[in-house]
């Protein structure tokens, strides 16, 4: 049984097919990368699964339950966590309190929420800044806080939207290591969309490629790196022809 199953998902925006009959399956415990050039439909697919957009056609099954059209807070309660490219959160609250908001998803007890939030901050090596405010922190740390908040809701499937955007190579390396650590410890299933290949290639067990709203390839990272359609989508026809010569 697949953990997440997307069947023939279609989403139009005023005549532009952002997602066109996309199907994919994610098994429990997998790390799946979703890549594609700008405008390929990655974020739309994410938003359809999580519930920010309602698909025009198709179905989304999570643990065999049809979750098509559920609202984001409902899909979260089903077990899908999600981070944003920019996680705008409350500047009036400390990091610990922000993460507590995530913990409150599963408990009403403030003390339990506080305890769990502190544990997650420890896991993400943020304990030293737990009393700091969001606007006092660098982008890399803010990204980790976003991750901590999503983790606090205890998801089974964690969807990461451009977790490395805006980070320098060293910070990118660190966040990849952190993702691997979380994956190992929590037994999560990760689904990440990313521009930065240095993140997707080493970490993903399988990669799905979108272009122009359609799925153009799927496979292990090595195959994807050599796939002609993928290279064409990223670098254009000329590059592919040049390679053949």
């Amino acid at each position, binding site marked *: 049984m697949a953990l997440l199953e997307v069947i023939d998902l279609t989403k139009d925006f005023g005549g532009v097919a952002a997602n066109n009959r996309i199907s994919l399956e994610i098994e429990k415990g997998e790390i799946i990368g979703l890549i594609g050039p700008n405008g390929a439909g990655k974020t739309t697919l994410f938003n359809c699964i999580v519930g920010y957009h309602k698909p025009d056609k198709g179905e989304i099954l999570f643990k065999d339950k049809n979750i098509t059209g559920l609202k984001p807070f409902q899909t979260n309660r089903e077990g899908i966590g999600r981070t*944003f490219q920019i996680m705008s*959160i409350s500047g*009036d609250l400390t990091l610990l309190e922000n993460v507590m908001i*995530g913990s409150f998803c599963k408990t009403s007890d403030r003390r339990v929420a506080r305890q769990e939030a502190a544990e997650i901050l420890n896991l993400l090596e943020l304990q030293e800044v737990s009393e700091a405010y969001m606007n006092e922190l660098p982008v890399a740390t803010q990204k980790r806080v976003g991750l901590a908040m999503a983790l606090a809701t205890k998801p089974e499937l964690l969807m990461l939207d451009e977790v490395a955007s805006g980070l320098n190579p060293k910070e990118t390396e660190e966040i990849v290591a952190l993702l691997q650590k979380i994956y190992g410890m929590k037994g999560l299933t990760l689904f990440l969309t990313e521009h930065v290949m240095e993140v997707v290639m080493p970490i993903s067990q399988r990669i799905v490629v979108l272009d122009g709203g359609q799925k153009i390839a799927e496979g292990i990272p090595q195959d994807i790196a050599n796939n002609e359609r993928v290279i064409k989508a990223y670098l254009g026809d000329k590059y592919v022809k040049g390679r053949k010569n």
Partner: protein
Amino acid sequence: MPIKTLKDALSFRDLPVWERIGFILFIIFCLIFPWITKGGFAQAVMIQFLIFCLYGLGWNLIGGYGGQVALGQAKNVGMSAYTVALLMVRWDIPFWVSTPMGVIVATVESFILGSFLFRLRGHYFAIATIAVSLVWQQLFINWNFVGGARGIELPLKETPNFLYMQFSSPIYYHYFAFLLVMGAIFYMNWFRKSKLGYQLRAITSSEDVSESLGINAHWVKVKAYCITGVFAGMGGAFYTVYYNYIDPFSVMHLELSIMIALMTMIGGAGSMWGPIIGAMILIPLDRYLGAWLGGRGIIGVDFMIYAVMVMVISAYEPRGIWGIIEKAQRKR
């Protein structure tokens, strides 16, 4: 769980020492006020201050912590005030029975309206709350059963009567209002540390992010709006027995809603003490200045001073006077 809740409500340990000292001074001031003042006017202003504290503390929930510009607090006050007045006048039902009914009416009305209005966001929501308030006021002005524009007058009992909250001295009203405000403060102290408090603040910064954290933003806002209704309902019920007279211009007026919102914003919306600070400054200013200038035939200047103050403070620090105080404390 109830013991933990009570502990959270009564414990101010997480606040800095100077805040706790300020709170104790506030309590002492309220307790001794009737004994250190002689004038009836001063005591009346003090009771008005306490009523506005109650309104403001309630509005702060949805307007401050929740960040929703809800300009309809007056209709909640009015709903409860009218329910209490009607029950007392038409069916002779004592204050202690009619007040819970009034609060329930205000809360149910908030629930029904909130369920619809919170489908709107931002300015649209604010405009809708104003529109609804105006509709309610017009209905009450033209509805004979509730006294129309003439309002309702509560008959005076021959002797002071605890059941109907009719006392011979304003001191009793003062202490009753003080108790209500203390209850509201303890509630808010629990609230700011509660799940609902955190969720509401998360929604203020981003509804999309908070939904991804399992928060049903619509329902959380409706809940907060209902609690705001409870506070306003208590205030409205007290207002009725204190003045023994209500009409659609005193308890249903848009001006009252705006006053409550502005007062909280000046004091510091989204902070524990903001509404109290706002009321502490604006109510005496409004009443004394209004009386003083009105006595000299200069009508309306007090409103101008009031408006300039709002502009200056909000330009300097959007989080109001409490924001200024906090900034100063952090610099130390």
